[in-house]
Structures are given as structure tokens and as C-alpha cells.
């Protein structure tokens, strides 16, 4: 019996010839990551355990992105704890201030994760890196502390579900719509404890940005990790950035899958997830008339340059509707700089947008765009739980950047094609 990509990466890092779903292995970690919401707890646990030195100062990445620029004294204290620890341990990859971006966009962009890696991060959206053909999963701060001490961690080898993507996505349909449709189909615990492996001819039509978005949200279906078999698109991306040699794993033809799901992406419309679950999905044509108070374009799901380009294409020469607050947050300094060079920031400013520094803030109701009771936001983010972006009586709708741009202009949730009748200024 062959193995899946996920099994192969876990076996290789556990020093075993083969592993099977359900067994618990102890595996070597290539890259470990913590942010300002989770690293301070890990550092406290590390010290409490009497540990002195991190397992490898070059393989621990610390990013201040959640409550930065520091929203209050406590947030500033947390970043100081990380900064002091980074100095003490001589950790070169400590990101704050003008170097910091949203970790899950920053790490791949900086080449810190390559194909074949085993990555853990004390953040649930660490699964994003699976887009590169890596095994990546979110853990808690205590797990991160254990890795900081030993360079290893325990894993239950997950069963893999193969997701075969057929066809070719139509206009305005992106990775966001593929993953929202999948979560809508299988539910928020439809892949609990499992790996989701994305294959099929449609994958060739998905950009790296699309794949990051898909892998980012597998946790919204409960999955442990999501993985895309590396192809030319992956190789090009990794070789342009990575400073380590990638390993390109493929699943064996006789690998064992817990389930096989098929989805024809050519039939997909842009999707909208209604409050308060990411699985509460409808095609944008069937949402009815929903007035929106705030549109947020950004996050580890959709704050990449490709996302900003899509939004800018629709917003160019147009304005956000009166009463709509439009917030755009480039995910990293590199995305910000590219958006500036391409003239996208001017498009957003002309449209009446607030341009935010790179931060996770608005997505998790941390700061920089909080909702009041009764307000509705449409966001390109990944979660629409009760109170996610502010008051427990506010509402969040999730969609792709094109739907977000159209929604900002029309003041209600809208299909991008509805802008055809709205003339540019």
C-alpha cells in the first residue's frame, strides 16, 4: 500500500519508512512559528520548563502581527517579551514594525517555508503553507514551547480525503470560492482531524495565491492540514524565494484515502458565507439585498497582491457607496510596496478607502476596524463567528475580493458583474 503526501512528509520527519493513518509519531519540525497572540505564552512555558536555548535559532520565526501596531499597553508588552526573547536567543527571524506582515503571507513570501517541510505554528491558519506541498498545521502555545525545547512534536497521522477539482473557474471565481463551496458542502467539522489533498485538472488553473487561500481555510472544515501536490507553479514560486532545498512529494497511485470528493469548479459562482459559520454558504446571486456598513479587504486569506489587483480593477474610477467604510490592508510590506508601485493604493484612496498597515487586527476584532452592535461587514477573511469583528450583535459575511469591491461600491452584497452598469467617474 502506498502513502499520501501527508503520510510521506510525516514519515520522513519521524525517521520512519512508512506511517499509517491513526498512529502517533514524534516528528522533527523544520519551521516553528509564533505570533504576538501566542508566542508570549509559549515563551513563558519554555522558561517555566527551565529550558535555556531554542532547538535551532534559525528555525523559529516570531511575528508581531495580531495586535500590531500595538493597540494597547498589554499588546506592547507582548511584543516586548518576544523582542527580548529574540535578542537573548539571537533569533534572526523576528519581525516587527515595518518588517512585519501577516505571518501566513510573510513566511512563504520570504522563502522561509519550502515544499516538503514540516511546519507548525501557534496559529490555526498555519495550514496555509500546505499550498506549497508542505505539511503545515496549527498548534497551541504549549506545543510551540515543546518544539522550541526539543525541535520535535507528536502528531497523530491524519487520514487523507482527496478533493478532485474538475473544470476551470469562471470569471470572478477564485480560490476563496472553491474553499467556501467545499466548506459549505462538507460542513465546519466535515474534515475534522483529517488532511485534505487537492488534485484534479482545475488545480493547474489556480495561482499560488488561490492555493494559499484554499489551504488557509481548510481548518474552517476542521482539517488538520491541506495540501497541494507541487507542480510547475509551485516550483517557480519556491525556487524564486526559498533559501533551502525543497523536496517535492507526490502521493502514490495506490495510497489510501478515507474519502474522495469531486467538485466541478466551472459551475461555481462567487460564494458568500453568511453569519455565523463559514459553512453557511450561498452563491452571490442568491443572497438577496443585504446592506453593508463596512467592507474589509485583507487578512491571511485574501490580503495578497493578486487580491488587491482584483479589487483595484473593479474600484478604479469608482467610489465606495455613501455610508460604507472600506478598509484595505496589504498583508505584508512587500504587498504594500508592490501595490504602491502599481498605483493600486491611489485607486483605493480615490475610492474612499482607509489603507491599513499590514495587521491581523480587523479580521479577529482586535483593532483597526471594529464593528458596533447591529452593523454588518463583508470581509475577505476566514471566520464569521459571533463577535468575530467586534460587538457580539454585529455580523460578518465572507467573500472574495471581487465581491468585496462590488459590495463596497453598491453598498449591498453584490456580484462583480453588477458594476457593469455603474460608470466610472
Amino acid at each position, binding site marked *: 500500500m502506498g502513502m499520501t503526501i501527508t503520510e510521506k512528509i510525516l514519515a520522513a520527519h519521524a525517521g520512519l519508512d512508512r506511517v499509517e493513518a491513526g498512529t*502517533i509519531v*514524534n516528528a522533527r519540525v523544520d519551521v516553528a512559528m509564533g505570533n504576538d*497572540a*501566542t508566542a*508570549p*505564552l509559549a515563551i*513563558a*512555558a519554555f522558561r*517555566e*520548563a*527551565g529550558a535555556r536555548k531554542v532547538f535551532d535559532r534559525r528555525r523559529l520565526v516570531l511575528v508581531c502581527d*495580531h*495586535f500590531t501596531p500595538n*493597540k*494597547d499597553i*498589554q*499588546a506592547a508588552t*507582548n511584543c516586548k517579551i518576544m523582542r527580548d526573547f529574540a535578542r537573548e536567543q539571537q533569533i534572526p527571524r523576528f519581525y516587527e514594525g515595518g518588517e512585519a506582515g501577516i505571518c501566513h503571507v510573510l513566511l512563504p513570501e520570504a522563502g522561509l517555508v519550502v515544499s516538503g517541510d514540516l511546519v507548525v505554528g*501557534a*496559529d*490555526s491558519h*498555519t495550514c496555509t503553507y500546505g499550498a506549497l506541498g508542505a505539511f503545515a498545521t*496549527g*498548534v*497551541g*502555545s*504549549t*506545543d510551540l*514551547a*515543546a518544539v522550541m*525545547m*526539543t525541535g520535535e512534536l*507528536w502528531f497523530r497521522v491524519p487520514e487523507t480525503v482527496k478533493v478532485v477539482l474538475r473544470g476551470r473557474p469562471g470569471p470572478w471565481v477564485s480560490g476563496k470560492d472553491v474553499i467556501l463551496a467545499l466548506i459549505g458542502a462538507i460542513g*465546519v*467539522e466535515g474534515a*475534522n*482531524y483529517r488532511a485534505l489533498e487537492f488534485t484534479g485538472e482545475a488545480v493547474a488553473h489556480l495561482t499560488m495565491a488561490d492555493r494559499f487561500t484554499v489551504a488557509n481555510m481548510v*481548518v474552517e472544515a*476542521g482539517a*488538520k492540514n491541506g495540501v497541494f501536490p507541487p507542480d510547475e507553479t509551485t516550483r517557480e514560486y519556491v525556487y524564486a524565494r526559498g533559501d533551502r532545498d525543497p523536496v517535492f512529494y507526490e502521493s502514490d497511485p495506490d495510497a489510501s484515502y478515507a474519502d474522495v470528493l469531486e467538485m466541478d469548479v466551472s459551475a461555481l459562482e462567487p460564494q458568500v458565507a453568511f453569519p455565523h*459559520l463559514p459553512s453557511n454558504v450561498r452563491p452571490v446571486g442568491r443572497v438577496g439585498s443585504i446592506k453593508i456598513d463596512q467592507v474589509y479587504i485583507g487578512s491571511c486569506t485574501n490580503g495578497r497582491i493578486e487580491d488587491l489587483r482584483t479589487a483595484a480593477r473593479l474600484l478604479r474610477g469608482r467610489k465606495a457607496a455613501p455610508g460604507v467604510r472600506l478598509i484595505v490592508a496589504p498583508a505584508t510590506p512587500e504587498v504594500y510596496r508592490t501595490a504602491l508601485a502599481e498605483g493600486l493604493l491611489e485607486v483605493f484612496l480615490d475610492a474612499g478607502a482607509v489603507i491599513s498597515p499590514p495587521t491581523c487586527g480587523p479580521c*479577529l*476584532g*482586535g483593532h483597526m476596524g471594529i464593528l458596533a452592535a447591529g452593523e454588518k461587514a463583508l470581509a475577505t477573511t476566514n*471566520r464569521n*463567528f*459571533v*463577535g*468575530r469583528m467586534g460587538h*457580539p450583535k454585529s455580523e460578518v459575511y465572507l467573500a472574495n475580493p471581487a465581491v468585496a469591491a462590488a459590495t463596497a461600491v453598491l453598498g449591498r452584497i453584490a456580484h462583480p458583474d453588477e458594476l457593469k452598469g455603474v460608470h466610472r467617474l
Partner: protein
Amino acid sequence: MIIKGRVWKFGDNINTDLIIPARYLSSTDPGFLAAHVMEDADPTFASRVAPGDIIVGGKDFGSGSSREHAPIALRAAGIACVVAKGFARIFYRNAFNMGLPIFVSPDLFDLVEEGDVIEVDAAAGRILIPSKPAAEVAVAPIPPFMRDLLAAGGLIPYLTKGVGR
């Protein structure tokens, strides 16, 4: 290990944003987090919960973020254990890593009412409801490795005691 306590019931999809909203995450102080535990699910919960109480949840308890502030807040509020129809994986890991006992039982939810006292007998794999002698519910056994983690008091003591090395 027998855990006896009063039941608080919550439904399906109690995610980590409900257990402890992100607006409080810049703090790691257990007392502060406990004062806001479950706030967006039941704003009165934190003031009414007592040490030794048990939370009984529905499907996918603890879904969402990896924040350990969630199990920290529950433990600091005095929650003795959580019994749910199912748990999201990161919360499941975090609970064992931190020594918070959690149990999977698909059947308990529909048999208990809020305020009932239950007895979780992990070794025997059952839950008793003394006020309903007929109702005895099976609880999924904790996998051996996870039992070792709990016995050590969590992952870090497990590692530093050298049990796992």
C-alpha cells in the same frame, strides 16, 4: 479519576471566539480571562460558574483559533472538565497539553439538563447522572498517549520528566 460536578450546557459549534473573544487576547492573565469566559455565548456565565463545574457541549466544541487562552480561561474559571459530542482538533490537543480533561460523548448532551450533577468515571468509561439512576452514558476512552499526558500534568511536564524521551 472520577470527576463530579454541576453541568452547564452549551450547544453546537462553541468556537474559541465564544470561549474567549479575541478582544481579550492581549492578556494572558488567567484571572482576567476567566472573568470573560464564554462572554459572547452567555454574558452571565463568568459570574455564575463555580469551581468544579462541568461544561457539556455539542458538536465541534473549541473550533476556530489555536488560542490557549480558551482552555486557560476555562481552567481558571474552575471548570473541572468538558464533555462534548466532539471537539475541534487544536482545542483537543491544547486541552491535553495543558492538563484540562475533556471527554467525547455523543449521548450525554440530550440526557442532562443544566444544573444536573454528573459523575465522569474516566477509568470505567462511563458517566453517571445520580438524579437519573437509569441514565448511564458511555464515554469514549482516552487514548493511552493522551492519558500519559494528562497523568504528567500536560505536555511540558511530560517532556521535562523525560517520560516521552
